[in-house]
C-alpha cells in the first residue's frame, strides 16, 4: 500500500483525512484508487483527459512524479498545489 498525503481542500474532500493508504503500481493507479475511495475528490487532481492538473504537483517520496511514475508499497505520495497563481 502507498500512502497519499493530502492538504486542504483535498483533505476535506477525503473526509478530513490527511493520509490515505491505497493500492496502485503507478501514480495514476493510486490517484484513481483515491477517487474510488473518496468520490468527492474526483476531478480535483486528475482531469477528464486522465492528466494530473497543470498546477498540481505529485511527489513520490522526494521526487516529482507523473501519471506513469512507478509506485512501490510504502511509498508516500504528496499531492500539493504548484508554486503558481496570481
Amino acid at each position, binding site marked *: 500500500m502507498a500512502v497519499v498525503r493530502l492538504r486542504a481542500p483535498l483533505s476535506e474532500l477525503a473526509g478530513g483525512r490527511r493520509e490515505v493508504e491505497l493500492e496502485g503500481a503507478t501514480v495514476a493507479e493510486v490517484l484513481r484508487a483515491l477517487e474510488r475511495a473518496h468520490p468527492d475528490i474526483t476531478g480535483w487532481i486528475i*482531469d477528464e483527459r*486522465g492528466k494530473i492538473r497543470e*498546477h498540481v504537483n505529485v511527489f513520490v517520496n522526494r521526487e516529482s512524479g507523473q501519471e506513469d511514475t512507478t509506485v512501490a508499497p510504502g511509498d508516500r505520495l504528496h499531492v500539493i498545489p504548484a508554486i503558481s497563481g496570481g
Partner: protein
Amino acid sequence: MTQLLVGTKKGLFVLGGDNGSFQVESRSFAGEPVEFAARDARTGRYFACVTSAFYGPKVFVADDPGGEWQQAEGIALPESEEKALVRMWCVVPGEEDGLLYAGGDPGVLFESRDGGLTWELNKPFWEQPTRPEWGPGAGGMCLHSIATWPGDPSRLALAISAVGVWLSDDGGETWRHGNQGLVPRYLPEEAREDTFDLCVHNLHRHPAKPERLFMQFHGGVYRSDDAGESWIDIGTGLPSDFGFPLVIDPDDADSAFVIPLVADLDRVTPDGRVRVYETRDAGASWTPRGDGLPAEDAYLTILRQAFGRSGSGETMELYFGATSGDVFGSRDAGGTWFTAAANLPPVHSVRVA
C-alpha cells in the same frame, strides 16, 4: 435591502446595502477566481462558478451564500485524451421548473433538471461537426450568454467567444447559426463571409419582446428583431462600439445599456472617464449616463459578466464592477451613480441576488 453577488479574482463577495451604502456581508472561496455568481429567484438557490488555479473549474450551490457551498455534480467533459473543461462562465434559469443551463469553456452547454444539483452535457451541441474548427477569443472559448425564451423552453439562443450565435427551436436537440449581419472587423474582408469566427461578447433577449435581442460584439453593438437570425448594427453614436457587458430594462423593449471601452487593443474606459450609455430607441441614439461616476483619470476595464440589474423602469437598479476592484451602482436606471464598494479584488461578475 439589495444583495449583490460580486465574483472576483479572489473569491465571492456578498455585499448588502441600501441607499447607496454597501458592506461586505460574506466572502466565500477565498483566494479562488469566481467567474460568475447568481441566485435563482425561483428557488432562492445561489450558484457560483469557481475556477481553482490548481483544482480546475467547478460549480457550487448554496442556500445561504455566507454558509456552506456544495459542489454540483456532472460539470465535466466526457473522458477523453483531448479536452478538459477549462472554466464555467454562467448559470441561467430555464423555462421549466428545476431547469437551468450553464455555459463554459470550451464552448460547452450543461443542463440541470433538478435545480442545479446535478448537470449533464448537452451532447448535440458538444458533437457539432464543425467543433474541431472552432477557435477561442482572448478569454478562451467561452459560452457566456444563454438567452431563454420566456414561457417557451424549446427556444434558446447561445453566444460564444469566438463561435458566434447558436439557436435552437427544440430545447437544445438541434442547433444552427444565427450570425447574419455580424461583421468581424478583426478579420480580413475576404475572410468575413460565412465565417463563424465571430467574437460575441454579450447577448440578451428582451423578455417582453422575445424576438428582440441585443448584442455587444468584439467591435460592434447589434440588435436582432427576428430572434437572432439576423443582426443590425446599432453602434453609431457610441464613443466606441467595443465593450463587454450589456443590460436591458425589462419594461422597455427598446432599451439597452452598454459600457464602451476604447478598443480591443486598449480595453479601458475612453478619455479617462467612466460612462454607461443608454438607448431607449432600440439603438437609434445613445445617451451617456455618468453622473456620479469617475470623470477624470479613470481608466477602468469592465468585464463581460460584471454588469447586473434588478427591477425595471425608472427605479431600476444597475450595478457594475471593474477590474480595479470598484463597484458602482445606480438606483434610478442610470440617472445618478454612487460607489457601492471599492478596493475589492478585480471584479469578474456582478449580479443582484
